[in-house]
């Protein structure tokens, strides 16, 4: 399999370094500034290129927000499937809109193969197997990966998010709706607010009959105050430890049930792990559908979580919530 990685920043760089060289024939790195250095460190099987070459099988898109739809469209037109680590609402919407074209061309686009969205959807789908009816799904995340992830976090907080309520999309102001959320240790509790996140768009595809789907991100007072202004201070190269949390509310055997799953890890590292596991699905394809879908709808969630656990990304369940 020939693999291309578009964007060699905090996430793309880790995927390139960590993907086992024996699972791929060739690795093509596409990045304006970092591809040459990274390719020279990796060895003969890796090379850099200014654009995605037409002969690759799978393209992993880990580039900055706003650019992923165009890259994915180009990739499927040149005959490659796509694993996109997309988290912005625009990218998720654009990638899902490529569904018909991907089906016509016999290619697959995995939308949201990161920490959030990505792992959140897989956890939600896994937790739903313990319930007979799922009414509500609430996602929360804390932390950022690389600098572009931090910029996207800043931007998302200043823009309206979307809540899914009984089949309708309701725009909600970014930075509103404070909710204290508990994440696995060592992250702990954080106040989370609505933001322009891609998660609800994908979770609603997985659970179209749910009554409510919401997504929130952790923010400080300063984050909320400055969210509508340009980012004046350059972000850190890596945001450190972060976490995601998925809360499902529904019914099980006639009783009201709440299931909370979470994971704590550096977001860039976790996103790279999830994207690598998604690529693995293409290395050993079982019955991959063509079209554009959320990651969770293309994999077996139990098996996928087990695979992530072997790679150091553990999922935890909160007990004592009832």
């Amino acid at each position: 399999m020939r693999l291309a990685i578009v964007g060699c920043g905090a996430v793309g760089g880790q995927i390139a370094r960590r993907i086992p060289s024996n699972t791929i024939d060739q690795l093509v790195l596409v990045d304006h500034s970092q591809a040459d250095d990274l390719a020279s460190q990796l060895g003969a099987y890796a090379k850099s290129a200014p654009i995605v070459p037409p002969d690759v099988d799978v393209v992993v898109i880990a580039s900055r927000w706003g650019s992923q739809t165009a890259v994915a469209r180009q990739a499927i037109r040149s005959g490659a499937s796509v694993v996109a680590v997309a988290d912005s609402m625009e990218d998720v919407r654009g990638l899902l809109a490529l569904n018909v074209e991907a089906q016509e061309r016999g290619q697959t686009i995995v939308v949201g193969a990161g920490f959030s969205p990505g792992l959140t959807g897989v956890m939600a789908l896994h937790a739903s197997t313990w319930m007979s009816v799922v009414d509500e799904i609430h996602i929360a995340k804390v932390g950022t990966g690389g600098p572009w992830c931090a910029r996207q976090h800043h931007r998302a907080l200043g823009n309206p998010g979307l809540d899914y309520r009984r089949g309708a999309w309701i725009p909600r102001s970014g930075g509103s709706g404070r909710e204290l959320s508990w994440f696995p240790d060592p992250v702990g509790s954080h106040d989370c607010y609505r933001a322009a996140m891609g998660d609800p768009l994908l979770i609603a595809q997985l659970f179209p009959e749910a009554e409510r789907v919401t997504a929130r991100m952790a923010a400080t007072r300063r984050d909320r105050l400055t969210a509508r202004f340009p980012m004046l201070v350059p972000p850190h190269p890596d945001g450190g430890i972060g976490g995601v949390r998925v809360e499902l509310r529904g019914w099980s055997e006639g009783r009201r049930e709440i299931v909370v799953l979470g994971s704590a890890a550096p977001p860039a590292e976790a996103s790279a792990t999830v994207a690598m596991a998604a690529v693995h699905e293409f290395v050993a394809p079982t019955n991959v559908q063509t079209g554009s879908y959320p990651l969770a709808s293309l994999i077996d969630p139990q098996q996928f979580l087990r695979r992530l656990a072997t790679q150091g990304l553990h999922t935890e369940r909160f007990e004592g919530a009832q």
Partner: protein
Amino acid sequence: MTAQIHEQWRLILKSATWVLARKTIFYAMAFLRFVQRVVTAVTGAAMIAGVLRLRGQGGVPPQTGGWRELSGPDHS
């Protein structure tokens, strides 16, 4: 003539005093009603809070639980 003017002024002053007195009494009554309502509300709230506090057993924070890594049974 002077007596007539004096009488007119006396009547004017008498009626003004009467009007002022009536208004003062009206506002005083309204203020007293407000104070009465506040005292009633605070007393009622204190009594309800007192009853709840006496009847309630108090909550015990969870002594077990927390985050637990998914294990074998969780994957079935």
